């Protein structure tokens, strides 16, 4: 076992091209999914935070529940949608990185929307009277709140990235784990472990953890800098 660890480290440090292609694809898929999920989720969270409408409480409960969507179920749903005989089959997206991004957006957007809703609602309580007194219109209000909450919203994006980077169920189903095309760190680890090739699995595991730590450290730095700059 310790021999495997040493070989894994050598594999990582040697810059093995296969390993780095896998790492790169994983980052591409997860970061794209987080970015697009933020574009969708933050305005949805803001809209729920600022508006009172019938069924609002139910919407919040459902949104919170969606944070725990099982990845394999999402994978299955997207599989059915994208498969040749499915409603979106004509686009030929199944077993492509795009399909993986779509599946991860579905997993990440509820997390970002639910956390953004809470953050923006808290800020809205604080700002409500001032913005009303300044006669700020509804769209400008949302823009103001998102802008002023931007450093707190980093936490929501991080939670979303954590989910995307760690999950294997949905992307395994809709991506197919095709070598050199849709093979990511998590799907490769699952495959190599079941095949018994622990060296590559351990190497990828080390890289995955390192990436998660680095991204969190960057986000922490951004947040601290932001608090220093904006209070």
């Amino acid at each position: 076992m310790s021999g495997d660890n040493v070989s894994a480290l050598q594999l990582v440090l040697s810059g093995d091209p296969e390993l780095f292609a896998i790492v790169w694809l994983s980052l591409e898929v997860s970061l794209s999914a987080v970015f697009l999920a933020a574009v969708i989720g933050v305005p949805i969270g803001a809209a729920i935070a600022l508006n009172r409408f019938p069924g609002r409480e139910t919407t919040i409960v459902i949104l919170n529940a969606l944070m725990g969507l099982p990845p394999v179920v999402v994978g299955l749903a997207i599989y059915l949608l994208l498969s040749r005989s499915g409603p979106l089959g004509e686009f030929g997206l199944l077993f492509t990185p795009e399909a993986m991004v779509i599946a991860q957006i579905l997993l990440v957007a509820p997390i970002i929307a639910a956390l953004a809703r809470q953050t923006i609602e808290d800020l809205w309580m604080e700002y409500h009277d001032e913005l009303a007194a300044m006669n700020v219109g509804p769209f400008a209000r949302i823009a103001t709140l998102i802008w002023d909450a931007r450093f707190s919203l980093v936490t929501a994006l991080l939670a979303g990235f954590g989910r995307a980077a760690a999950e294997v169920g949905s992307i395994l189903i809709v991506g197919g784990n095709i070598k050199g095309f849709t093979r990511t760190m998590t799907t490769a680890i699952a495959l190599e472990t079941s095949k018994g090739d622990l060296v590559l699995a351990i190497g990828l595991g080390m890289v995955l953890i390192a990436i998660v730590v680095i991204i969190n450290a960057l986000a922490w730095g951004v947040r601290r800098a932001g608090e220093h700059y904006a209070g």
Partner: protein
Amino acid sequence: MKPMRAPAADLPLTFDEVSVRARGVTILDRIKLTLDAGLPTILIGPNGSGKTTLLRVAMGLLAPSGGRITWGGREHASPDRRAILFQRPAMLRRSAAGNIRYALSAAGVPRAERAARVDALLTEVGLAGLAKRPARRLSGGEQQRLALARALALDPAVLFLDEPTASLDPAATKGIEDIVRSVTARGVKVVMSTHDLGQAKRLAGDVMFLHRGRLIEHSPAEDFFAAPRSEEAHKFIAGDLLV
């Protein structure tokens, strides 16, 4: 300084039998009043007498449950020329200058004019050296002055101040009072609540005395302090505990 604008379209401000009720409690009880340009109107009365609610209704932030309000003869006038300083103002998560710039932008001041206005307003409230400081890291007195500058950025014809010096020391209080005098001199109508009778005497043109949601007295300051007409106001001025 900014140019004087035409006489305010928001004045006179009139309350006609205005009531506010919430959850069965009457907060304002059939208030009738008229406010016009001139020296500051000072609103006094014990805690819970309805001062804050009266200011919020006058600002147009809270719709009355009964009666009607008109600004310059119009109902439902949008608050373009009114501004309010809340008792505990919220600081936007931006620099001191950024807070004022935001208000200028909300008031539709052209981008090219904003920088000069920001400087002028910060200087007016004595915060010129703190332009870049995050607003939430200013002291309580500095935040109060910044919020006042932000309210003035809207170029109001009527400025409502809700106990602006309640938690300030004498020096900071004097700073706020000086600003009240200078904006009054440029033709801004100030309507201000306070617990400080000395301050009321220093600033007031007229005094409104509110007790349990009713406007007990509204008279010129000299008359009010020399000879209050009501028993409650008499006690309040004498320093008796009015409960």
